[in-house]
């Protein structure tokens, strides 16, 4: 049964990757739709980022003092000015670790 679920999940996931690339003709999308598609990264990624920062493992809101919030702010500032992915991730992690291992100890 587990194998069956994995395979069906795999087919569903593959379909979501393939459908718009292989089955849909781009001509079918109007200019307005194409214009809106410019915003796909801005529309998708915050929906992963916000819950990752503002919710804990149990799905409830973190407190305003949560280290993740400050790590994210540092990463945001560093990323904005450095335009560098590694610097963004590392600065976020380091400031997060600094808070949990030094300030909260």
């Amino acid at each position, binding site marked *: *049964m*587990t*194998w069956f*679920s*994995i*395979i*069906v*999940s*795999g087919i*569903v*996931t*593959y379909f*979501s*990757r*393939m*459908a*718009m*690339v*292989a089955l*849909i003709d*781009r001509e079918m*999308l109007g200019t*307005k739709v*194409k214009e*809106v*598609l410019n*915003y*796909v*990264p*801005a*529309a*998708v*990624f*915050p*929906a*992963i*980022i*916000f*819950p*990752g*920062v503002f*919710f804990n493992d149990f*799905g409830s809101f973190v407190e305003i003092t949560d280290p*993740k919030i400050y790590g*994210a702010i540092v*990463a*945001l500032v560093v*990323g*904005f000015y450095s*335009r560098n*992915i*590694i610097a*963004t*991730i*590392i600065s*976020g*992690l380091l400031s*997060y*670790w600094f808070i*949990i291992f030094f300030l909260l100890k």
Partner: protein
Amino acid sequence: MLSKSKIFFKGIVAVLPHMLSVIPFGIITGAIGVELGFDPILVYATSLIIFGGASQIIFMQLLSGGASSLVAITSVGVINSRHLLYGAVLSEYLEKLSFIKKLFISYFIVDQGFAESNKYLRQNKNLSNPHYYVLGTGITLWFFWQLSTISGIILGSFIPEELGLKFAIPLTFLAIIVNDLRKLDHVFVMFVSGFASLILFDAPFKSYIILSPIVALISAFIMLRLKK
């Protein structure tokens, strides 16, 4: 004119920084699967067959928690439906390919690969073989994902949980969009999406992952109409 292999290589280089979060996440995914009591082969099969980080973890958690296959499959489908949006964007660069090649390359469409491909290809519209860039990003992510989930399966979670490395996931996506904070219209769409995800977080089947982007894209559509 850039050769195919050069474009492919550029794709590889573009996603390498994201391995900082992809590798720990892969290790965690493999280790969680084994901890939940799944056969190592099954855990690995999710990486090969489903190939979608968060959806694999939720899939295994649901099944081990006694949820029906239908619930597990539906959740995976809902979480991964965001790829429809990636496909719609990338199709601009893949439309000239043969049907078979489209089927092949589709398997490698992943969040970070989509984001980096979109960023690069938008600025290099007249590139002759843009799909090599998409492949370079996708195959790199695929390779490291397989490798890291396998290490998680074999070694268990050798990453101490206190490190909170799960936090690297929002950071990697933050790194993707942080540059667009310079554009006010994008900032608006980001906040709509972010707030929507906080409000919709408890919606069934983790559907906030696709509902929030839909809300954000509708607001982008309205914004564009008002601007005109």
